[in-house]
Structure formats: structure tokens, C-alpha cells
């Protein structure tokens, strides 16, 4: 079975999709930055848009809009709603 079937990452979502964060796998510095900006397990988010040429992803969490690169989005596991 391909891992993506039971494990989904923020980087795989399309614009307009919504999801709930299920896990964050990041080293201390990245983890701190993510939590400070509102990325927490159980928190819902929506993908506002993705930049052309596989550029950054624009995510909305609660009251905050954040952009992050695909490499960072790869560290965030989600369950799509």
C-alpha cells in the first residue's frame, strides 16, 4: 500500500481544501515557529492558494494567514475534511 493512502501531508492539499492537523514532525526550531504561528495538532486549516511553479502554500489557520514552502508543509500531517 502506498503510504499516502493512510498518511496525508499539508503539501499534498489543493487550493480550497480544508483539513485538520494530525501531527507535526519537525526539529525544535521549525516546531517552535509553527506552533507560534498557530499550527497545533487538532487545529483546522484551509488552503487559500498555491503559488505557481510549486512555490509556497498560502494557509489560513483561524485568524492567521501564513505562507510556507513545500519542504515545510511536508512536515505537517493532516486529515482532509
Amino acid at each position, binding site marked *: 500500500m502506498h503510504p499516502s493512502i493512510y498518511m496525508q501531508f499539508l503539501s499534498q492539499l489543493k487550493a480550497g481544501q480544508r483539513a485538520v492537523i494530525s501531527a507535526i514532525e519537525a526539529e525544535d526550531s521549525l516546531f*517552535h515557529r509553527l506552533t507560534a504561528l498557530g499550527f497545533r495538532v487538532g487545529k483546522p486549516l484551509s488552503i487559500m492558494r498555491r503559488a505557481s511553479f510549486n512555490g509556497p502554500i498560502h494557509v489560513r489557520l483561524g485568524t492567521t494567514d501564513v505562507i510556507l514552502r513545500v519542504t515545510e508543509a511536508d512536515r505537517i500531517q493532516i486529515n482532509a475534511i
Partner: protein
Amino acid sequence: MKRIALLGMPNTGKSTLFNRISGASARVGNWPGITVDLLSAKILLGGNIVELIDLPGIYDLHGFSEDEQVVRHFITSNPVNLLVVLLNSTQIDRQLSLLLQIKKLGFPIVLALNMTDEAKRAGITIDTEGLSQTLGLPVIQISAKYGDGLPKALAAATSVINQQETTTNPQSIGLMLKEEHDIEDEMHELIQHHVQIPTTLTDDVTDKIDRVLLHKWLGLPLFFAAMFLLFQFIFAVGAPIQDGLAWLLDLLRTELLNPLFTNTPAWLSGLMLDGIYNGVATVAAFVPIIILFFLVMSMVEDSGYLSRAAFLMDAIMAKMGLDGRSFVMMLMGFGCNVPAIMGTRIMRSRSMRLLTMLVIPLSLCSARMQVFIFMIAALFSPSKAPLILFSLYVMSFFTMFLTALLFQNQYKNTEPFILELPPYRFPTPRQIVLRGWHEVKHFLNRASKFIVLGVVLVWLLTNFPSNVAPASIDTYAGQIGVFFTPILDPIGINHELAIALIFGFVAKEIVVGALAVIYGLQGDALMAQMATQIDWVQALSFMLFTLIYTPCLSTIATIKNESKSTAFMWLSISWSLGLAWIVSFIFYQSARLLGY
């Protein structure tokens, strides 16, 4: 003297609040963590002079970014009497964590909730009294931008300070910081009881603008168009002002200074007028452009568009170890390198700033353009002129990308690329003007001595020994040119051109003037003379060298100030000189090999 520190997350209007209280010109930006140096001001509070310090915006007391380390370092080594914590009301649900972290450390705190107006519009209601009681500290709603609630906040700060005779103990704070705190539950509790947030924010305006400006295909063309228009504006308005200033300085010289120095020895009037006065004039010429650039840039920054530029350009720039913000500054460099290098301050990561600063001096600025237009007119037919100019632009981009690619591993950016997109905001004119003034002051303070010294040095080199004709082969500058013959011959640069290149270190604007002095001719006669002395291959080699080597003394001074590193300044100078030589060498030798 009692000490108050101002603390908050990026984008909470902290610098605006600092400006409002202090009246000083701290920089303001709608960009996460814009304050670079620690600004402080002495203010009058309840009859006493108090020192107010503006700490950099941070997300987390335990974070690893440079700013977070700065703040940690500050609070564990400096005692304070009070911390004013500023939070953005519209994001209180996540920003409270910072307050709770600080509260755990036992600081006396006044909590100021900023952007009350935005929060109201978004339908967020905060029960400040309840929050104040639960937290056990004063909570005041303010608007830093318009000054609402400020007297109340200052009164609260005064009463805390008057009750509080002792300062915090930095050592014990350092010890406490070592322990991790789990504050998530407490934060959740507070939000649930005291804050109501509608499920979807009614921030329609920003969303609508973003739909256009961040559009998948329209976004980039719109970004380029916007940048083009802004830079067009800066130079369309700036150039006449610069010309006017030059005319005024010239008038001052001919009408006032020349008569004043008629009876003094030649060397003294030369030193004062051609050396020092010209140096001052060189510095002054940058002032209008710097003012205009920062007026426009602070507008772009405060509006929130710069973070959007990062979003649009990141995919391309990331491959060179840069990001979208670097690109904005690289584009600016095509107008003038000096403000572009000053503008790199919007980047938070030092390594990325240095890489961008290394790249910017390679852009074909408007001063180099003057040299090219003169040389092209002298040696090329009008039909070939656009092609030559175009290839110089291509070369400029090529050297920039090459430099970024080669040095991206030396200046590896380790900070993750995660940025907040703030809502679009209108900056107040007061913020914009303060910012423009602040930057000019900064430039004049730091760069002027360096530039005047450099101009005097070049004047000495080109006017001594005193018994020879100025700027001739027999001067020290000419001797340097002769000394470097083994290096300059392989790239087709003769002694006269070598002296012009030495002048070019001061500013590219004076290269053409220097050629006039060196050849003792002007205008068409100078062009005709040069056409007989050098051929087009030499001319193009000279132009390539001029394009790539150090743009001017002002740029060098700015690089030194902004990087705060003399070693980095020398790296920039030697890299550009080396690259200039290699490119000219390859071009000149292959053209000669091909029989031209």
C-alpha cells in the same frame, strides 16, 4: 533611571506604538519583525524620565530565530521595571501565549491590546475587565496607529512603575527560562472564557485584493508592473530633484566658494573644492533618491504587499538561495545600489541579507548607464547601440545569478520559510515621512565621512606629484595604471582608461568627466579622439569591466554599514573586481582570437 521594554509579536504595530510614545523615528513595517537594532528613547512618565526600549518582534520566548535570541539575551542580562506587552487583538487567540510565557517569568506587565478597530470590524469582542482580573494585570485596548487609549495605557504603566521599586532579576529569569512551560491549556481556558471569535473572519477586503494580486497567472505580471511603476516614479521624480541639487551645489561653488579660494595656494583650493567639496556634493546627490525610495518602500512594506511579493517570487528565487524580498531589492539596484542595499534590512536572516548584498552591486545602475551611453555613442553606430545596451543588461542579470549560485552555500539560509501574510493596511503619512527622514539621517551619519575621505584620496592620486598635469600618466593614478599594465593589457584597457577606472571607484557619474580631464577634450572632440585611440572591442571590454566592478564609494560605505563587517566589504570589492577582470578577459581575448 527606570526602564520599560516594549515586547510583542511581529506585526502588532509595536514600532508604531514606540514611535507614537517617543516621537522618535523608529522604523515601522507591516512585515514580521522589522526592527533591527534595539531602539530606545527617553520619555517623561508621571514626572520621571524613563527609558523606553523597543525589543524586536518575536513569536515565542523559546524560539530559535535571531530576534528571539536577541530578546532572550536582553531580558536575561538587563533589569527592567516594566514590560509593556503589545498583542494584536485580531490574533489574540494565538498571541496570548507570548504574554503567558512572560507572565510566568514574573515580570511586572501592562498588557496593551492593539488594533482594536480591526478587531471590532472582524466581530471580535474582548472582555478586557474579565481578562484583566483573571490575569491579574492591567489590560488596555489601544490603537497605536491613531493613538486611541494611549493615555490610559501610559497611566497604567506609570502606576505600575511607581508601585514597583525593584527591578527584575535577570539571572533568575535566565534560570526560569531554562524550564519549559506548558501553557497551552491556560491559553485555551482564557480564550474560551473571555474572547469571542466568529467562525469565519469578515476580512473581505484583503481576500478580494489577494484574489487578484496573488492570482496564479496574473500575480507575477502585476507584481512586475507594480515594481516598474514604482521605480519609474522614484526616478522620474528623483532625477529632476537631483539635477536641481547639482545645479545648486555648482552655483554655490562658482558664486561663493571659487571667489573665496582665489587667493589661496592652488593645492589648498584644489583640496577644498575638488576634494572635499566634490565629496560632499557626491554624498548630497544621493539624498533625494534615498528619501523617495524609502517613502515608496515604506508604503509598500506597511501595506503588506512585500510579503505577497515573497509568495509570488519564492519558487524561482529559492533555487538561488534567495527569496522574493531579495528580488525586490535586486530590481531596485537597477536604479541605484545604495538604497537597494539599505533596503535589505527587510530580510530577517543575516545570511540571506549578505548574499543579497553581494548580488546587488552587480546590477546596472543609472550611473553606470551614463558611462555606457557615452561610450556607445563614441564607438558604435546608432543602429548597434540598442543591441550593445541590451547585452549589457543581460550580462548584469547573468553575473547576479552566477554570484548567487556560487555563494549560496557560503551564505546558507537556515531559517525556515514561514511568513505571516498580514492584512492590507494603509500606512499613515506620519509613519512614511518619519521613515524617509530616518534613513537619510542614517546614510548621512555613517556614509559621509567615508565618501569624503575616498574622494579626497582620489583627488590626491590624480593631482600629485604637483609638478605634472592633473590626471595625466605622470600622476600617482597614472603610475598605478602603468603598474597594473600586466593585468590591464590582457583586457585591452590602456593607461588613460585605467585612470578613468580609478575615478570610477568614487562614482560612475564622474567617469565621463574624468575622461574629459584625462584627454583634455570635451564632448564631440573627446568622442572623436577616443574613437581613434581605442577600437570597439576595447570599448566593450571597458564597459564590461565598468559594469561589474565596484559601483561606487557610496555603495561600499553602505555595504560596510549594513553588514557591519569590514571583511564582507572587502569580499564584495575583491569578488566584483575579480569577476570583472575574468569576464573582460574572456570577452577581449576571444574577440581578438576571432580576428576582431
